[in-house]
């Protein structure tokens, strides 16, 4: 199969959906001629014009609010939020307005919009351009949350998101835009709420989101050389969450680590670990382990930043301990 970059995959998804459905439009800063700072949208304005690929002023609450209104009245806007950290600026429009409109109107109004943004540290972008804020939006009923882990998921989930009748937030890993992966030429969609078993294994389950899937695969490779069989699962959407696939795996392996690049405390790993503990408790040989980013603002210095996120080494170490039944903390 041909390989394309994650950036190209998103670009294709947008172009295909815009061709298919004239109500799809794009709003964001420097999305048109500049094709976004990450160059994800290059070429789209040439094909679809400035009426559908709209450069906005630096008014995140404003244009997200406008996307909500456009979506409520018959358009399908895709909003580009340049950095995931800017979610803090638009929470009211996303969480008080978009997320609640369908419910508050008793099902009469829909808000079919996509907010695409990113996550990920270790790019030396410091505390306001490096956050992974998926836990915040996942907490708000009415929003769906997708976390593609490669070009393949980025394309398939984006197309599904655009066709969904609800507000969907997609977090791309900003360090992965140039990473290539096999992506079919033919059209495909990835349904929400279906986890992907990336690699089957029998000794331990690693559940990893987005950027952390690569880490989990690295751990699987490493531990394989030590004779450990690792199952790697990518939930792909954390809302809705495919509990069944996760539970099946954990019941099989009896050991699990949940890995996500958001801060660990009050984060995504807590929810997934809790559900697994609740629903597979008597199958577990040790408590489900969580590995999130450290609970510190992301430091600029390369000497500090790299230790804030889970790595192949730190995850492998936790896995080895689990396998050796050395989780003394739990005692």
């Amino acid at each position, binding site marked *: 199969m041909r390989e394309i970059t994650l950036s190209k995959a998103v670009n294709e998804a947008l172009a295909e959906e815009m061709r298919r459905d004239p*109500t799809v*439009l794009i709003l964001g800063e420097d999305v048109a001629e500049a094709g976004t700072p990450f160059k994800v949208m290059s070429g789209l304005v040439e094909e679809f014009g400035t*009426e*559908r690929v709209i450069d*906005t*002023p630096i*008014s995140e*609450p*404003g*244009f*997200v*609010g*406008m*996307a*909500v*209104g*456009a*979506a*409520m*009245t*018959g*358009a399908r*806007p895709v909003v580009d939020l340049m950095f995931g950290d800017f979610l803090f600026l638009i929470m*009211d*429009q996303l969480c*008080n*307005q978009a997320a609640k*409109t*369908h*419910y*508050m*109107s*008793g*099902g*009469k*109004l*829909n808000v*079919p919009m996509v907010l695409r943004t990113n996550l990920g540290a270790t790019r030396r972008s410091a505390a306001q351009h490096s956050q992974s804020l998926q836990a915040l939006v996942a907490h708000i*009923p*009415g929003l*769906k949350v997708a976390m593609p882990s490669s070009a393949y998921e980025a394309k398939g989930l984006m197309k599904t998101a655009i066709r969904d*009748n*609800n507000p969907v937030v997609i977090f791309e890993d900003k360090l992965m835009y140039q990473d290539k992966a096999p992506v079919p030429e033919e059209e495909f969609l990835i349904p929400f709420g279906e986890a992907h078993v990336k690699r089957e294994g029998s000794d331990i389950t690693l559940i990893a989101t987005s950027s952390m899937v690569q880490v989990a695969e690295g751990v699987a490779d490493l531990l394989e050389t030590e004779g450990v069989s690792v199952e790697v699962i990518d939930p792909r959407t954390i809302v809705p969450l495919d509990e069944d696939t996760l539970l099946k795996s954990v019941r099989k392996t009896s050991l699990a680590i949940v890995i996500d690049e958001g801060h660990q405390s009050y984060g995504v790993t807590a929810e997934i670990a809790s559900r697994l503990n609740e629903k597979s408790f008597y199958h577990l040989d040790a408590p489900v382990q969580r590995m999130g980013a450290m609970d510190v603002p992301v430091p600029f210095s390369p000497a500090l930043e790299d230790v804030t996120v889970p790595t192949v080494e730190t995850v492998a170490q936790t896995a080895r301990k689990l396998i050796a039944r050395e989780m003394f903390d739990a005692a």
Partner: protein
Amino acid sequence: MPAKSKTPSNTESYLQMYRQMVRIRAFEDQANKLYLSAKMPGLTHMYSGEEAVAVGICEALTNEDRITSTHRGHGHCVAKGADFKAMFCELLGKEEGYCRGKGGSMHIADQSHGNLGANAIVGGSMGIATGSALRAKLQGSDDVTVCFFGDGATAQGLMYEVMNMAALWKLPVIYACENNGYSEYTKTEEIAAGSITARAEAFGIEAFKVDGQDVLAVNDLSQSLVARCRKGEGPFFIELETYRYHGHHVGDINREYYRSKEEETDWKTNRDPITRFRATLLEQGIVTEEQVEAINAEIAQDAADAVAYALEAPYPDVSEVDMHVYAA
């Protein structure tokens, strides 16, 4: 640029405006009674006194035109064509309410008449209204969107963000600032520096100030701005000087510490939009005293009937609680 009323030309439309204003007043009187008799869950914000604003504007709109509304939203909802029964059912949390009881007073929406909903976040609907206008422009539809908001909402930064985009892209949206002199318990001059219309003008938006107690003045201006919006000459901004008769919400009874009884009495006796328009209608011979009284009585009865209906109507089944979180 202050606007002023022209002479009447259309009996039917005048009567419709009168009726709609009386309907709003009747609705609010009943809603207030429901609160005072402890039959309404929660609090609500009365529109009484501001009727000419919603009616003057909404009578310049068609069913295809959209509005966004506020926490003080019953007036907009009635003016945009809503039905009493579905409204009272909503206020009481009943299944037959416009939102199946899930929204209540502060989120009442009436999709069928283009009311995109009340909003409990002050200024929260400014993006929505402007986005609706963006959609209209992109899809080549000639509908216009009116964004209602209070003087207090002019303190929300969102307003300036969306006015900038509306102006840059010439969107068919009208920002209607209902300046009733107060945001909650604070006078407007204490929270708004400079000039409200100048703020819109600074973005290149034509702005108007109009007497919000004069339904004809409001309607004339609205007619012309709506027509200009349809021709691509939007956006526009209107500041409407008006007054709320009740407290900030139904529970705000002792108001003297922030506004005087004399001020209230002055507005109610000398500037009431319904009394004034009724006088005009009589003066111009459009209706007789008897006809007016008959209209009033009929509407009062309608409102009372709707309340009785809503009080008896069933609540949604508890199984509805997790319906409508996500659309299919």
